[in-house]
């Protein structure tokens, strides 16, 4: 709990907010709401019961899309990492799909799943799936061959080779990829909600503008997205401190 670790970031944020508020006071404008107006906006959302509802709606979609991606990407990545022929076959397809923004899938998602949660979840799933698969494959490739040789030498059965060697050996790299993928998923949920559903923080932003130019609520939505995204990243970072993965990061 040192001043450098907690105090300085607090000072930074407080200074930023103060400068923002003073600038708005000095130049009365309708182009940007000040932080006080935004805070009041968040309060209003809380009172109307929308704050919790929208935050949970967004988190719900991210959770399912992201978990689904983990369940597919990790086994697929392990398979592609272990079996070279599999990678040669499937990798070109992955590489073509990778540069396509998840947002480009929105029309297809709506065509397949209609307007609703499933479309949004599908988009998040797609957005997380490719980076996670590629990262898992690469992580398997980068395993020090000494570990694999040792596992062979001790005649470990296949299942244990995967559970006791392959997965722990890639875990440090995998956690970094999971962190990045969760960040992407959080970016995509907002965009998906702007188009494909009528709840959530992305919907809040579009709706607040369309229904009466409530820019205080627009910025409130943005602030909530930033704060929750930071929280998610903070949680993922804690995984990097687990005893069984710390070896993988420069200390």
């Amino acid at each position, binding site marked *: 709990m040192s001043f450098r670790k907690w105090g300085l970031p607090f000072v930074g944020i407080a200074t930023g907010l103060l400068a923002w508020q003073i600038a708005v006071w000095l130049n009365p404008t309708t182009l940007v709401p000040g932080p006080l107006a935004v805070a009041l906006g968040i309060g209003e959302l809380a009172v109307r019961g929308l704050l919790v509802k929208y935050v949970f709606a967004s988190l719900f979609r991210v959770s399912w899309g992201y978990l689904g991606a983990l369940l597919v990407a990790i086994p697929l990545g392990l398979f592609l990492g272990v079996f070279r022929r599999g990678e040669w076959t499937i990798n070109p397809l992955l590489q073509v799909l990778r540069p396509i923004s998840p947002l480009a899938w929105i029309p297809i998602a709506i065509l397949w799943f209609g307007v609703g949660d499933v479309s949004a979840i599908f988009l998040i799933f797609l957005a997380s799936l490719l980076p996670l698969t590629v990262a898992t494959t690469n992580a398997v490739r980068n395993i*020090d061959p*000494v*570990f694999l*040789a*040792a596992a*062979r*030498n*001790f*005649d*470990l*059965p296949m299942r*244990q080779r995967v559970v*006791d*060697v392959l997965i*722990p*050996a890639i*875990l440090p790299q995998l956690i970094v990829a999971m962190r990045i993928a969760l960040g992407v998923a959080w970016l995509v949920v907002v965009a998906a909600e702007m188009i494909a559903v009528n709840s959530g923080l992305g919907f809040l932003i579009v709706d607040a503008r369309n229904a009466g130019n409530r820019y205080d609520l627009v910025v409130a939505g943005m602030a909530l997205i930033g704060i929750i995204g930071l929280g998610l990243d903070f949680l993922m970072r804690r995984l990097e401190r687990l*005893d*069984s*993965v*710390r*070896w*993988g990061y420069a*200390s």
Partner: protein
Amino acid sequence: MTTGKIKVRFRDVSTNFGAVDVLQHVNIDVAEGEFLCIVGPSGCGKSTLLNIAGGFLQPTSGDVTIDGEPVTGPDRRRIFVFQERGVFPWLTVEDNIGFGLFDVSAEERKKRIDQYVSLVGLKGFERSYPRELSGGMKQRVEVARALAVNPDVLYLDEPFGALDSITRLQMRRELLRIWQAERKTVLFVTHDIEESVQLADRVVVISARPGRIRRVVDIDIPHPRDLSSRRYIELRDSIFAEIGLAHTV
């Protein structure tokens, strides 16, 4: 220490990687319980030879037999010890040592872990992770992990190469103590001639590539060896001469 029975037999082993001849017509008989060192200059194929014995590589021609059976792949009765980087960094000391004990009862596993933790002098570090250990301690973990599955042959590939010179001397003493206690057959590859003369019953000297056996030297000095004895220096210098190095700097 040896019983006279042949444990590991290299029969006319030759290997090439593409157009490069790595080993040519290597014949060695290793007796049960023997400590055999294989020395030679960098790139002479001594590590390749050990990997063939360990079942990780197939020779181009010839074969290796253990107790008369040809080696077809890695086997937990013969454990390969890498430099200390072979320790699993995600496991604690005790879980590393117990790594190969996946098919014994929990009770037996614990007993053997305790036994080998003490043997290699790591009491008090059972719950430590490798990143908290020194290079020498990690090497002990790896030796203990190998011994815990009770193999009859140990292959050591320049195991102390990454350690500082003081730790290296201590580790040699430790290894000899363990070898005398456990009576394993040991094949030990090194480029350090002093090391080979300090440790081995016999030293096999391999030539620069393509690797061929130049000479086999019996080290007829009882343990503990006096490193300034006339015989030690004589044997050491004869190997230096064999490799074509005058022993001066």
